[in-house]
Structures are given as C-alpha cells and as structure tokens.
C-alpha cells in the first residue's frame, strides 16, 4: 500500500456531529442485482443505535468519484446492482448515535469492478464495538474465490 493510499485510509474514520447525511439520495439500483449484502448490527447498549449505509460512487480516475446514490442496509439481505466493467467505489458507513447526544460515522471503503455474469457478496457487521466488512467475489456455486481489501482513493495530499 503506497503512502497516498495510506493517507486515504487514514481519514476513513470520522467522528462528527450528525448532519452529514443531508445530501444522500437513493441509489437507483437499475442494474441487475450482482451484489448481495448481508448486514448484522448489535450496538451492545440500549443507549446506542447503529444504522448502516452503502454509498456508491463511479470512479472517474484513481481519486475523482461521482456519487451515484445510497442504499440503507437493514438487518437482512439486500440486493444491489452495480454496472459491470465500471470501477465502483463502495463506502460502507456505520452511523452510531447515542441517546444522550453524540454521533459517529465509521467508514469502510473498497473498490470493485464487477465482471459480467459474476456475483459478489458483502458481509457487513457492527457488533459490540467491533465492525467488519468483507466483500467477496463468488464462483458459480456461491463459494468465495476472491476478497476485496479495504482501499481508499489514491488522491494527492491536500495542500
């Protein structure tokens, strides 16, 4: 992983006040479903809530992206259709809210270029202060054959 990629990863966890999602729009999901997302959330406290989102971006180059939309992930399987052959930046976001104030966003990003006729699966979880995202390519029998690693955008450092 080069320095720029490390920098991109280094901003992947943000703690902010709740306001950052106002520009979200639904992902059109107009392509045939080729990514199945299974989501599990358990905050571990009655005073903490967890919501999970998948933001999708079309990659213009290694750094520039175009926002395509957002899918809210429920604790069930969610089907998402991503254009084949198009490098797509996936940003999984856990939004943690506390009953007595405070919110945090935890981001996990990766890049996937779906191949035609191939299926993909993502296991997304936040359980008791531990989160995990695994995005895998599946073979015809549904067995994982490749895992996509956490990856940020390769942008020049901000001046």
């Amino acid at each position: 992983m080069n320095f720029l990629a490390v920098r991109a990863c280094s901003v992947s966890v943000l703690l902010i006040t709740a306001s950052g999602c106002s520009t979200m729009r639904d992902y059109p999901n107009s392509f045939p479903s080729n990514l199945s997302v299974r989501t599990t959330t358990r905050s571990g406290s009655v005073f903490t809530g967890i919501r999970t989102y998948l933001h999708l971006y079309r990659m213009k180059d290694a750094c520039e992206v175009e926002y395509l939309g957002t899918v809210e992930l429920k604790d069930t399987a969610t089907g998402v259709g991503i254009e084949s052959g198009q490098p797509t930046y996936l940003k999984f976001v856990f939004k943690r809210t506390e009953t007595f104030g405070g919110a945090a966003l935890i981001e996990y990003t990766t890049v996937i270029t779906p191949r035609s006729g191939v299926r993909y699966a993502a296991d997304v979880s936040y359980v008791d202060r531990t989160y995990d995202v695994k995005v895998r390519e599946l073979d015809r029998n549904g067995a994982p054959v490749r895992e996509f690693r956490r990856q940020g955008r390769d942008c020049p450092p901000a001046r």
Partner: protein
Amino acid sequence: MLRDFLRLLPIMLILGGCAGAPKNAEDFRQAMRSSPFTRTESFEVARPFRIVSETLQRRSEECFNVAVHSTSTSVNIPITRTSIRAYKPTFVGRANKAELHIQQKRSGGGMVEIGAPPDGYYRVVLDAVAIGPSRSKIDMYYMSPDDKYIRDTLRGWVTGERPGCPDLTKR
C-alpha cells in the same frame, strides 16, 4: 519566588513525565513491566504461529491505519474544537516471533504531545511466539486500562474468535 515555583510545579511534573515516554517498543515493554500497575498480560492460543502472524499483519493494516477526527463544542463558549487521533500499526515479522506495535498521535484541539515519538505514544505492544506446531504464546503490554478496546480486538484476532476492527471513535 516560592509562589512561582509552586505555579510551575504541575507543568514541570507533566513535562518530566512526558519527556520520559518510551521512544521505542523495547523501552515500552520495559516501562510496562516495571509499572506499579498491571500493564501486561500473557496467554496461549491453540493456533499455529504462522496463522497468528498473518492475521496480525493483515488486520492491523486494515484496522489501525486510521485517524479519528472529533469535533466538540463548548456549552458555555461558542468555540468548536477539532482534534485528531491518528493510529499507526507497525508489524515486525520473523521466523518464530511476530510483533505488533500500536501508536497513537493526537493533534489539534489545543493538544500538544511532549516527548512523544514521531508517530505518537505507544499504546499497545503485542508479541507472539511459536511454542509448538499449533500453539502460540502471546504477551501484551499496554499503556492504560483505556486501551482495553485495542487489547480485546488483538485478543480476538490471535484467538480467531473476533476478526473485526475496533470502533475507535468510541472511548
């Protein structure tokens, strides 16, 4: 004169303590071993060293190459402060021993770290050694009880019970 000295005493104590902060992993181990509080833990896991080592390397790169940006606003004074906690994992792998060092560097929000290594204070150091074909011994050294969430994560990795990343936004 005495009044000036007493005013400066807390600052001198803080600076003195920080200036003595461990500058490398071995210094950190020594400091935690000699701490009057319990700052070490050791246990064995029924997993081959190679798998333990690979897991530590792969997961630490994914989970600890992060920076937590936090913003807080004072209730009484309309000032918003932004601070950053940047984590840095360092993995050192050898034939029969692996080390993982977790450092944390704080900046912004009026915080100044004095005497810290360039990548921040050492928070946790973990050593894994092979003690048989399918067993490994783990020694962990940690700065503070607040680092429990890091220790729990590393324990989950070496035992294979919890592969996920810690929510570092929560203290």
